[in-house]
Structures are given as structure tokens and as C-alpha cells.
């Protein structure tokens, strides 16, 4: 190794083990060529655990720590350099074992610095107080080590003899062969072909590929032009059992060669390679047919075939890591890594070691536990229909067994199939039909995992910064969710909290629309909608066109027409019959209005207020509001009559009289205020539903439409049953048009003086963004009388109001935004048919945030 410019290449993801005696220059080498965070040195670890880098007594603990840190980096797919002598085989074995565990390629770099230089350096160092006999011993170990590294399992070994070499050395990091992240597709991923040439040809043509048989041996006899910008990806198992494995191989090799296809190996392909390489293999499972078909092929082709099969990479990571193709699928912790275990998994999948009644290995369905970001497309196990499960899909639809050959179009997620022409082989194990009517995902979603909800969580949404859910909030939410909430399959949304306006600048009022308008004006929102705020109970309603449609979409075994739940996910109606009557009445109105056809859906999720308040909150009203009203009126009357008597005695009670007389009136007004929202109901009689958002229908979350669309669409079906359904009155405001502002304020004043709760001011668009981030989707502005039941009967007394106006709404607003974005994210994920746990974690997050302490009067 005496070239002037030395360049060594190591895999981008590898474990680099430095091997060399003390003072051979390992640390300075590491410093020169690697980032400081990539290097873990044993001396450093000794220092961490004992305050002394040379403390040999601390070696065991130091290496425990080193191994732990190495493991953490490899788990995160980060290159790591181990700066220790690594002269003992046992020390290297431990590292190799860790690299294996994380499917990482081990690299050894040996520092073979000359002995004179080492002795010279050792003399100069003051921190090494051991004698030169130690060095001599180390040098003997180094010699022994050099011979063994290859055998021990290091995949790349580099030896550097001369410190001069380092001056001309460069280290290149090469990406792994499975890394094709720069290939962004679009792709057509094709399932197990098994020699079904005609079906493959038909499928490719259906996908828009042009195939020409040229007979030109240079391109294996075929010329393929890909569909516009697309590329095929074969999941492997090209051969065996079928009628024309030879032709399939020629076609695929030609496509791979001219760049119109990628191919990963299947177990059958690899067994064929073994056979062609002269290894002994059992001729079974259709290999005989393949060998027979290949017999007529010239030996040059066989050589090229061997080279082709030999070149196949276990799996590919495509499209910025968003897509993975492997023959039998791949666990998340193996994706983009390389080891014998990874390759075996790609070829055979995971088996428990058990053998079933057909003599085949029992397969463990790894996809059930898959939770990765990448979509995994695979084949290997024939099934009647491809099915999504946790963002993975098996597209081996048993072509050779009389099924069909299937392609998945990516990113469209569209399935394209060609029926087989005949049954070429009988399956050993019959193709399993799914026992219940539901999809694999829905069946899987029957039971969620604690890991999906517990502990501290960070949730990403499209709308705002990641939302952090703290452990104590998750813990509180877990109790509510598991003890009181509906089946998680229903809970595709929970409503966010809403902040009030800043305190009113006007005297004698705590809230006023002007502050809501100011808030939006300052953030550059011009068009607003003011909706009447109903005073009832929040209700989320999910209702289907038919019970069957709903069952199919939501994945229940039992049929319902729908459900209605509260803001914390509880069933709204404790009486099942009442719920049924409620849903039927709403259903009738939706059908009457032609809702299903108009919106091309057979279900809808509505955000509503259900009146009267007393229908749901009677126990709260009795124990809280009525209690205060009743006791207050009684005492105030007694006080006033005593003070009146005292006045007659000409006692100086004028001050007391002046203070208490307004309070006597205030408590009456308090009673009047809450009584407004109470009404006797009898079954459904007296119940009014006011929907105000059409949250989602099949394939759509309607957060892209302005509130006027929601209002109009809702008004259209409310007309069907005006006694039961209430369209929400509203006013539009243009902040550049003073007249619309004064009209809205006058409207608010009138509504609230008639006992109304107030209004909600929203940007006209459902989702509004400012320069930096999301803007409050709504600000509530409550009337002065309503606020008595929140802030107390006497809150308008000057001394009280002054103190109350000092409230801060910051925390409430921050919660409102987090909950709003999580709620929408949950809907998006549901509509996108993501696994339930992805929906549930968002909904769970809303509930967890709701347990956060915040001034309840806001």
C-alpha cells in the first residue's frame, strides 16, 4: 500500500472498529476523518464512569457504557467509530455481535504504525504510566489479530502502515446497495410471476408498457418501452411452477438491463441460483419445470442469468424512504440495512419454526406489528385479494395457482390485475379467504396497543408544530378513554376547546365582539363569519346511509345506523332507544335532502350542538347552578328584609343597603340566565340538533371549504325537519367594511340581551394561517348575562370586573390550536384509511390535552 493518494471506501452505515496498540495514533486518526460525535473512545468512557481516563479498574463499566452507546447509534442508523485498542478477539466479538443485532456492516481499520514510532510516542506521553512490556504484549496481539479479522466477520479491512499515508488518505462513504431513495417513481410493483409469461405480458401492456420480441440476444430477446416516466419493480419469485420461467427471466432481465425495471430476489429465484451454481438442492416446488425450460437455453445465457440472480439486492428503499419493496416483506428495524438476517427475512419472511398440517412453515405475520413510515410492498404468500395492513400490502394473488397477477401502482395505490389463463399448479395450502366480511386492517384494529397511547408522545400533524403530549396527561386520558369512551373505531374526531376574546376594552363588559375582530385584523384575516353560539352540549354525530355501509367503513361486526358522542368521546344518549330514534330522525332528513347522492358518500361525520343544555347536563345544573340560584335568592331576600328593618330603625346601614340591593337583583338575573337553557324534554320531544360543521364524508375532510359552504349545506337538510334540526344563524363580516362590523355587533347585542349565549367569530376559511403559523379557528364572544353563570352572579360589580379583566387567554389559545390540528389530523388519517392507531393517537391526544389545567371560565 504505497500509492501516493490512498482512497478507502466504507459504507455510509457501518461500524468502524479501529485496531491498534496504544500510541499508534488511533485517536488522532479518528479526529481527522470522522465527526467527533461519531467516535466513541474507551478512554472517554473510562473517564465518564471514574473521572480517570487511565483507570484500568473501571474497564468493565467503561465498556458496558461504550457498548450501550454504540447500540444506540446503530439503532438510529448512524455510523459509529470505536476508538479502543480492540486487540483482543473477545473484545471484537462483542462489537461484531452488536453490529449483527442492528444489521450493520462491520469495518476494521488497522493502525500498523512502526514500532519505533510507537515507542517514541510512548516515551513522550505523560498520561500513560505503564511500562514498555505492555506495548510489546500489545504488538504481539496485533500481529495475531491481523490474520483473524476476515474470518471473524469484518466485511471490509483496511491496514494503514505509515503515518505519512494519512496525509494522502481520503475516506469515502458509499451508500448501501439497497438505498435507491433518489428513485422517486412512479412505479408499477408486480407480484410473484412464477413463470406466467403471458399474464405478465398482458399486465405490463395493460399498465402501458410496450413489449417487443426482437430475438436479439444482446437484450435477451426483448425490448421494452416503459409507460410514461414509470418503472416496474418485481417483488421476486419470477420462476418455478409456471409454464415459461425462461421467457419471464428474459423479459425481466431485459427490463432491468435497460432501466425500465428493478427486481428484488425471491426464495425461488435464489434456489435456482444455487442449483445453477452446482449446489445440491431438492428439486421440488416447481423447480423441475424451470430447469426443464432452461435446458434449451444457451450456456452464455445461463451465465448471464447467474450473474443477474447473483446481483439481486435483498430489498430496495425507494422514493426518499417512503417505499420499500422486499419479496417477503420487511420489519421496520431491518429496512435499509444489510446483513445475512435481513436477506433471509426478505426471502423467507418470519416463521415461528412450527410446521402446519400441510408440512409448510407456520408464518408469523410481521405486518401486524409494522409501524414504520415507509409503505412496504411484498409478495411470497399467495392470498385471494391484496389487502392493506398497517401501511403494508401483499400483492401475491397466486397467479400460478389460478388466481391473478397483480400490480400496485405507486404512488396512486391503485391495484391492476390480470386473471390467470389456467391453473398451472395446485397450491399445497389452500388460499385462505378472510373469515369475516371486514378488511384485514379492520379486523386488526379491533384491539389497539398500549404503546399507541401511553407515555410522553410527540404527534406530527400537517397543520402546526408537532404536539407534545405529556405523560401525566396521557395517564388521565387513558382512564377516561378506557372507562367511559366509545369503541375507538367510532372516535375519528374530538372537538377542540375554544378561546374567548381578550377582555373587553369597554366599561361594564368582560367580552365584546370588537376584541375578536381586532384579533383577526392584526393577523391579517379580512373575511369573517359570526355564528350564533348555541348553548347546549357539544355532540359529534356519525351516521350512515345504511347500517351495512357504516359497518363496512368503520369495521364493526354489529350493525348500527350511527352514533352520537360527547366532547370526551362518551356515548351521548345513555338510552339506546332514544339514540336509535335520534339517528333515525336525522337519517330521514339527510335522505329527504338527497344528501348521500349529492356528496357521493354513504356516511357523514357532523360537528353539532345539541339542545337543550338540560337534556345532558341536568345533574350539573341541579348540583351547581340551581343550587347557587336557590340558596342565593333565599339569603339575599332575608338580608334585604333585615336591612330594610334596620333602615326603619334609622341605623346607618346605607352602605350595606347599596351594596346588597344590586346583589339581590344579580342573583335573580343569574337564575334567569341559566334557566334560559333549560327545557323539559320527553324522549326526542324538545330536543334540537344544530350541526355547524360537516367534518367528513367518504374520501373527504371538508376543512378545505369555507364556513358558508358548511352553513348552506347544513341549512339544506335542516329544512327537512325544522322542529328537530336547526340551521345556525350567521352574519358575514368584512373587516374593511365598517357597516358589516356594526351590523354584527348590533346582532350580538340583540341576541345576548334576549338571553342568547353569544356568538363565535371565525375566519371565513376553515383553516386560516398567518405569516408564521395557524390562526385560532374560532373565538367565542359571550354575552354579559350568560357570563354570570360562568363568573358568578356579581361579576359585573366594578371591583370584581376590574380584577377579572386581568385574565390571560394565551394557554387556552395554545391548547385550542393543538387540539384543532389534532382533530383535523385524525379525520385526515381516517379518510385516508390509515390504521386505526394512527387516528386514535390524535383523538387520544385531544383528550389528554383537555386534562391540562386551564382556567375553566375561559
Amino acid at each position, binding site marked *: 500500500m504505497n500509492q501516493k493518494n490512498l482512497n478507502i471506501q466504507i459504507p455510509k452505515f457501518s461500524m468502524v472498529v479501529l485496531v491498534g496498540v496504544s500510541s499508534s495514533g488511533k485517536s488522532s486518526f479518528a479526529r481527522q476523518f470522522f465527526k467527533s460525535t461519531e467516535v466513541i473512545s474507551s478512554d472517554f468512557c473510562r473517564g465518564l464512569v471514574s473521572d480517570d481516563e487511565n483507570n484500568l479498574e473501571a474497564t468493565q463499566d467503561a465498556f458496558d457504557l461504550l457498548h450501550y452507546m454504540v447500540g444506540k447509534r446503530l439503532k438510529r442508523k448512524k455510523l459509529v467509530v470505536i476508538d479502543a485498542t480492540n486487540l483482543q478477539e473477545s473484545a471484537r466479538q462483542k462489537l461484531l455481535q452488536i453490529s449483527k443485532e442492528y444489521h450493520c456492516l462491520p469495518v476494521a481499520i488497522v493502525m500498523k504504525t512502526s514500532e519505533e514510532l510507537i515507542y517514541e510516542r510512548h516515551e513522550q506521553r505523560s498520561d500513560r504510566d505503564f511500562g514498555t512490556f505492555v506495548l510489546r504484549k500489545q504488538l504481539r496481539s496485533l500481529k495475531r489479530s491481523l490474520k483473524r479479522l476476515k474470518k471473524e466477520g469484518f466485511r471490509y479491512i483496511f491496514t494503514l502502515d505509515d503515518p505519512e499515508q494519512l496525509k494522502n488518505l481520503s475516506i469515502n462513504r458509499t451508500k448501501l446497495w439497497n438505498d435507491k431513495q433518489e428513485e422517486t417513481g412512479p412505479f408499477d410493483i408486480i407480484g410473484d410471476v412464477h413463470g406466467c409469461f403471458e399474464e405478465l405480458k398482458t399486465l405490463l401492456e395493460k399498465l402501458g408498457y410496450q413489449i417487443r420480441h426482437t430475438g436479439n440476444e444482446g437484450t435477451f430477446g426483448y425490448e421494452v418501452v416503459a409507460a410514461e416516466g414509470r418503472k416496474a419493480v418485481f417483488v421476486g419469485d419470477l420462476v418455478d411452477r409456471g409454464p415459461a420461467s425462461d421467457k419471464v427471466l428474459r423479459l425481466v432481465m431485459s427490463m432491468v438491463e435497460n432501466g425500465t425495471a428493478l427486481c428484488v430476489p425471491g426464495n425461488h429465484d435464489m434456489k435456482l441460483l444455487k442449483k445453477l451454481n452446482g449446489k445440491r438442492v431438492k428439486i421440488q416446488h416447481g423447480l423441475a419445470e424451470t430447469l426443464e425450460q432452461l435446458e434449451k437455453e444457451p450456456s452464455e445465457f445461463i451465465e448471464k442469468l447467474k450473474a443477474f440472480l447473483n446481483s439481486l439486492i435483498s430489498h430496495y428503499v425507494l422514493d426518499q424512504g417512503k417505499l420499500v419493496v422486499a419479496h417477503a416483506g420487511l420489519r421496520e428495524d431491518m429496512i435499509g440495512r444489510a446483513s445475512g438476517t435481513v436477506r433471509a427475512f426478505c426471502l423467507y419472511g418470519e416463521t415461528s419454526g412450527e410446521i402446519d398440517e400441510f408440512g409448510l412453515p407456520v408464518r408469523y405475520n410481521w405486518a401486524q406489528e409494522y409501524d414504520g413510515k415507509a409503505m412496504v410492498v411484498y409478495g411470497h404468500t399467495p392470498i385471494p385479494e391484496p389487502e392493506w395492513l398497517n401501511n403494508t400490502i401483499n400483492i401475491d394473488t397466486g397467479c400460478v395457482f389460478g388466481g391473478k397477477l397483480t400490480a400496485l401502482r405507486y404512488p396512486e395505490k391503485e391495484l391492476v390485475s390480470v386473471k390467470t389463463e389456467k391453473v398451472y399448479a395446485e397450491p399445497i395450502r389452500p388460499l385462505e379467504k378472510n373469515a369475516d366480511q371486514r378488511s384485514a386492517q379492520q379486523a386488526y384494529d379491533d384491539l389497539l396497543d398500549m404503546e399507541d397511547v401511553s407515555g410522553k408522545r410527540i404527534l406530527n400533524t400537517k397543520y402546526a408544530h408537532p404536539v407534545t403530549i405529556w405523560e*401525566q396527561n396521557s395517564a388521565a386520558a387513558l*382512564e377516561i378513554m378506557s372507562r367511559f369512551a366509545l369503541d375507538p373505531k367510532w372516535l375519528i374526531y374530538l372537538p377542540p376547546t375554544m378561546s374567548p376574546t381578550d377582555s373587553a376594552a369597554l366599561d361594564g363588559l368582560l367580552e365584546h365582539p370588537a376584541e375578536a375582530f381586532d384579533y383577526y385584523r392584526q393577523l391579517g384575516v379580512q373575511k369573517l363569519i359570526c355564528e350564533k353560539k348555541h348553548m347546549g352540549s357539544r355532540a359529534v354525530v356519525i351516521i350512515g346511509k345504511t347500517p351495512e355501509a357504516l359497518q363496512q367503513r368503520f369495521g364493526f361486526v354489529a350493525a348500527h345506523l350511527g352514533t352520537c358522542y360527547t366532547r370526551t368521546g362518551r356515548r351521548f344518549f345513555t338510552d339506546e332507544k332514544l339514540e336509535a330514534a335520534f339517528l333515525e330522525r336525522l337519517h330521514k332528513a339527510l335522505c329527504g335532502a338527497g344528501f348521500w347522492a349529492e356528496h357521493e358518500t354513504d356516511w357523514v361525520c357532523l360537528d353539532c350542538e345539541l339542545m337543550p343544555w338540560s337534556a345532558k347536563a341536568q345533574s350539573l345544573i341541579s348540583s351547581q347552578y340551581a343550587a347557587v340560584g336557590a*340558596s342565593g335568592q*333565599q339569603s339575599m331576600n332575608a338580608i334585604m328584609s333585615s336591612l330594610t328593618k334596620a333602615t326603619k330603625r334609622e341605623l346607618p346601614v346605607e352602605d*350595606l343597603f347599596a351594596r346588597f340591593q344590586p346583589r339581590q337583583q344579580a342573583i335573580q338575573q343569574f337564575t334567569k340566565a341559566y334557566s334560559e337553557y333549560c327545557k323539559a324534554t320527553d324522549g326526542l320531544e324538545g330536543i334540537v340538533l344544530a350541526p355547524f360543521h360537516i367534518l367528513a364524508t367518504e374520501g373527504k375532510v371538508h376543512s378545505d371549504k369555507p364556513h358558508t359552504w358548511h352553513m348552506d349545506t347544513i341549512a339544506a337538510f335542516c329544512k327537512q325537519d325544522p322542529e328537530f334540526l336547526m340551521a345556525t344563524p350567521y352574519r358575514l363580516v368584512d373587516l374593511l367594511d365598517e357597516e358589516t362590523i356594526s351590523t354584527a355587533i348590533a346582532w350580538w347585542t340583540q341576541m345576548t340581551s334576549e338571553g342568547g349565549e353569544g356568538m363565535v367569530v371565525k375566519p371565513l376559511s376553515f383553516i386560516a394561517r398567518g405569516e408564521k403559523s395557524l390562526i385560532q379557528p374560532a373565538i367565542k364572544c359571550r354575552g354579559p348575562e350568560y357570563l354570570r353563570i360562568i363568573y*358568578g352572579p356579581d361579576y359585573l360589580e366594578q371591583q*370584581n370586573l376590574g380584577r377579572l379583566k386581568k385574565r390571560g387567554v394565551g394557554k387556552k389559545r395554545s391548547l385550542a390550536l393543538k387540539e384543532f390540528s389534532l382533530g383535523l389530523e385524525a379525520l385526515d388519517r381516517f379518510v385516508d384509511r390509515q390504521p386505526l392507531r394512527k387516528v386514535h393517537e390524535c383523538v387520544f391526544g385531544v383528550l389528554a390535552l383537555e*386534562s391540562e389545567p386551564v382556567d375553566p371560565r375561559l
Partner: protein
Amino acid sequence: MLLSITTTYQPATDLGYLLHKHPDRVQTFSISSGQVHIFYPEANEEVCTVAMLVEIDPVNMVRNLRKKGQSLMLTHYVNDRPYTASSFTSTAIAEVFSTAMNGNCKSKPDLVDKKWPLEVQISCIKAKGDLAERFFAPLGYEILCERIPLNESFPEWGDSYYCSLSLKHELPIKDLLTHLYVLLPVLDYNKHYYVSKAEVEKLLSKGEDWLKDHPEKELITKRFLNRSRGLTRMALERLAESEGELEEETDENDEGNKEKEAVQISLHRQRLETVAETLKEKGARTVIDLGCGEGKLMQILLKEGQFEKITGVDVSVYELQKAKKRLHWETLSPRKRERLELFQSALTYRDKRLEGYDAAALVEVIEHLDADRLQALERALFEFAQPKLVVITTPNKDYNAKFENEDPDRLRHHDHRFEWTRQEFKDWAEKIKQSYRYDYEISLIGEAFEDKGGPSQMVVFLIT
């Protein structure tokens, strides 16, 4: 709140001497969270009435709570405190009438021990059921308790827990004040204030001579000890409040309930011992107690050396905290600590931490789950956690017939979602046997009632 005391003692205006408050003056005193005003609406030779007006500043009251680090709910802001007699009233009495209450009267000492015809009017007090009668009648009072309706516009809501209370008696005024001082907060029984133990003793010393013979001595004492609620509880209540659903206060003064409660406590003990015995008999070494509550079963199991690992799981952080306290978690010896584990989980989710145990116990747990969520528990338990042995107990609905004058469909606990008859329980066990790899045997717990079986039923599932 207004409390007034009227006398017809002649001359009635002597009341002013006894109380050290001049009938022609209006006086104001400060107490924490407010003021007390004293004036006489009526004062002549024949009749004299003193009025004590307690004026509470609600905003200030909340500030005091917040200083103590309580997390607040709506009820802390809008409540009956300014309007009803409560511990504030006692504070006011102590502040304003302490000399009279202690029986001192320098100018007319002979008046102190004299029995006066007295009538007390309390504008409003919370007095559930016949409590006012039970507390005051044994002391010789004539009681008039006028119920206040919740809301006159909604007669169907019925009466509130409040009444305006009038008490008549002939007794020394110092005794009257002492009675009011002790009994008003006992009636009110407001949970929002924490009364320290030292203060309780102080209060009880006021009532020493008359309380010891009072038939309701126990209840009176108990109601002084307000329970403070843990912070975790508050988080849950916040959520419940936003729903408009507050848990009803339990009425512990109901005699019938008390007896039933005693029966249930002993039954629970029996149940736990049966379960522990079963686990021991079947040779379990590692046990997971699912729905461990405050850890009573764990405590029993801990005493048996056979159990090498005892893990408690509950969905409620509050219960887990109680369990930790019961098990002296913070000071456990290393050997004991090794045997014990506690964590939060919910049985409607799959949880890998539940796997690998010899046995699982679910004592009175399943009935707290909605019937339609039971399937999730079944899978989490029998398909995934898969202990070799599962012991489950649940109430026997057939036994409810014993509690005669109760509706047989009435559930024994407000959080029970269902209660099963013996047949329903057996059907369920059979279903588990058909769906999973378990066999079962059923037994009953507690003394049988006629042919209805014991109060509780138990099933033991064994993996096959």
C-alpha cells in the same frame, strides 16, 4: 348569609350586653375572605333581634385556594359559599361573639348562665334529609326547616338540599353559640375546604360537654374530617365537569347503606382471600392483579413466599398512588421491591407488559366495563397476555333478590355497567372456552342466600 338571633327575654335589649354589641350601632369586622356586619333590625324591651351578616368576597376566596396550589374547577368560582351557613359562619361567630361564647359578661355576669327564650333564623343552610333534626333535636331545639325548591320555574326538579332553618329553645346564649359554631359546618359538610386534624380537635373541645352524649356523635365527628382530594382526581373531574356530569355525592348518613356497606366490606375481604387461596393452590408463582385498585390483594399475596412476582395494574393513577401508599412503596426493602411491580394500563388495549405471568386475577373488574368493550378485554387477556391461569370474580345478580325492597335490576355500584346471573356468567365462560385455549370451573363466594347462590361468583380459567 344572614344569621339572626331573637329573644323575648325581658328586657330584651339585655342581649346587647351579653353579646358585647350595642343595639344601636352597626359594626363591621374582618374575617379571612370577607367581612362580618352586626346590626339589630329590631331592638326594644319586648323583642330584640341581632343580625349577623357574613359577606364573602368570592374572588378573594378563589385566590386563597389558588395560593394553596389547587387546580380549580368551575365550582370553585361559582358556588353557594356567600349564601349558606358554613365554616365561614363559625369563623364569624368566633371572631365577633367569642366573649359571649366563652361565657364572659363583665357588666351583667348573672345573665350568662340564665336560660333565655331564643329563636335563631338562618337564611340558608345545606341540610340533606333529616340531618338538621337529628343534629339539633337531641339538644332540645324546636326545629322548623323550610325546604327551598331548586328552581320555581321548574317544579319538576323538586327541592334543593337547602332550607331556611329556624331553631327555638330556652338556653344560655353561650350554649346556643357553641352549638351553632360546631353544628353549622357539620351540616354544610363542604368538601372544598381541608380541615386540619388539629383544628378538628379544637372544634370538638367546644362541644365536649354536650357532644359526648349526642346520639349522632360519630357522624358529627366524621363530617368534620373533610377529605382532601388528590390532584390526579382533579384532572379527571375537570373532564367530567366539561361533560356536565358530576358524580352525585354519596349519602353516607343513610342507615340502610351503612349496614350494606359493612356486609360488602367483609364480603370483599372474603373474596380476596378466596382468590389468594386459589392462586396458591394452583401453584402460581408470578401473578398479575389486573384492576388492583389500592392493592389489597397484592398485600395478601405478598405475605406468601410462594409468589415470586406480584404485579398490580390499574387504569387509575389515583388508585395506583393509594396502592403505593398501602404497600409503603417508597421504603420497601430491595427484596420486597423485587417481588412487586405497579403500573398503569387499560385492559381494553393490548399490552406486552402483561405477558409471561403464571396467573392473572381480575377481582370485581369486568363489570366496570361496557358490555360492548368486553371483547377487547377478552382478546387482550386470553389471546395476547395468555397467563396459564385466570381468576375472575363478579357480582352474582341472582343474589340481589336478598336486598328485598330494592329494584332487582338496580346495580350494586353506580359504576357497574352490568351484573350477571349465574347462567349469564356461565355462558360467558363457555364462550371463552370456545374461542380461546382455556378450560374453566365456576364457584361461588360468600354465604349463599336460599337458592340464589353467594353474593359473588368466581371463575377459574386454565390454559389447555
